[in-house]
């Protein structure tokens, strides 16, 4: 196996559980989440330049690409008017338990716990809005309908929540160097 291919394998080992985590949380479909992850690696492999990953590093870039692709899929579902039916009552939340065990030795686990702590520190109503919007992929109007609250309230909760999260998460470093 070529050295760069070996490096790709290692990157896949390192990043795939986290990419599956966010895409499966959003899409609630394991097969579709795997497709998104495959597309993400191919996109990054083909397009990343030495500066392409941005100042925050490779892992955030992979996460961003994966999440945006999951959003694209959700929008496609909406166009087919299936999104709400698929999400209603089935989404288990950002903090749903992983399918298999994990441990602190897994690279990235500390980041996960830091992010979780930041999410847990949010007031419950803001946390619920972030879970549905960011990890559930619902639009603000869908959240308003689902929670039975005015759209303006959803916007306010999200704005306050993301302002707090920006402060809480700004210091995290890239563990993939």
């Amino acid at each position, binding site marked *: 196996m070529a*050295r*760069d*291919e070996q*490096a*790709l*394998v*290692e*990157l*896949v*080992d390192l990043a*795939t*559980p*986290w990419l*599956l*985590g*966010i895409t499966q*949380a959003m899409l609630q479909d394991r097969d579709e989440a795997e497709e998104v*992850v495959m597309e993400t690696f191919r996109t990054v492999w*083909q397009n*990343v*330049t030495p500066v392409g*990953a*941005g100042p*925050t*590093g*490779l892992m*955030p870039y992979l*996460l961003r690409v994966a*999440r945006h692709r999951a959003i694209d899929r959700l929008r496609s579902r909406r166009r087919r008017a299936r999104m709400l039916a698929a999400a209603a009552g089935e989404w*288990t939340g*950002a*903090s749903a338990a*992983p399918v298999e*065990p*994990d*441990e*602190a*030795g*897994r*690279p*990235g*686990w500390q*980041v*996960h716990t830091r*992010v979780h702590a930041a999410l*847990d*520190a949010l007031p*419950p109503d803001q946390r*619920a809005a972030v879970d549905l919007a*960011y*990890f559930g992929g619902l*639009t*603000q109007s869908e959240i308003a309908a689902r929670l039975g609250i005015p759209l303006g309230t959803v916007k306010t909760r*999200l704005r306050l929540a*993301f302002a707090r999260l*920006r402060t809480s*998460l*700004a210091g995290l470093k890239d563990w*993939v*160097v």
Partner: protein
Amino acid sequence: MKPHEWFVEHRVDYAAGILEADDAAAFEAHLAGCEACRQEIARIEADLAWLPMGAPPVPPRPGLRRRIVEHVLDGRRRVPAWAAPAALAASLLLALGVGWMAQGQRASLRRELAVERARVAALEDTLSVMRQAGRVLYADLEMGGARGALVIFADEKTHRWSVVVHGLPPAPGGERYQFWFITEDGMVRGAQVPASEDRPMMFTTGMPERGGSVMGAALTVEPAGADDGPPRGKQLAHLML
């Protein structure tokens, strides 16, 4: 035509990807001509870069790694005809990843080293808490006929705990294990605990930001979706400092 103030107000919404499709499209059109918004969006994206890792990791199914690698390499073989294939392939290989920003073997070695450093750093961090722990708390667990234990290594200098849970079976369908801090103001939710009888679950945690002084910890099995409020499920362990 939306005023600039609207875009300023919705920068975070756009960066987080939570705008409605029409508004997102309007924002993208606006960004093409607004340097200030582009710069601020970049800052927000950097600040929120790790937020997706709030979702728990999902172990890949067998064979997925091979499928991903084949998918990527298959795509590499289909590089556009307009590029000089050998040069482009070489540049793509060299470009992949922050750890591979240098050239050839050196870059790859740096990346391998970085991966190992990350693993070692995570383990060292956990071990440092265990090593410095002023108190070690232990409780037996019993769940579905399986017996295990909850062990907490409390480092009182750094106010961090290393928590080990072993022997628990995977949570029953529709339920999950939840770690709690017992504080002056009541129970404060901690990490969720994926479990396996095959190997222990370990995590390192700081103290919660709210709830006042921490007086102890508990482990419960909660209904899935109960993401806020006090414990509702069965208590498996209860430890007081």
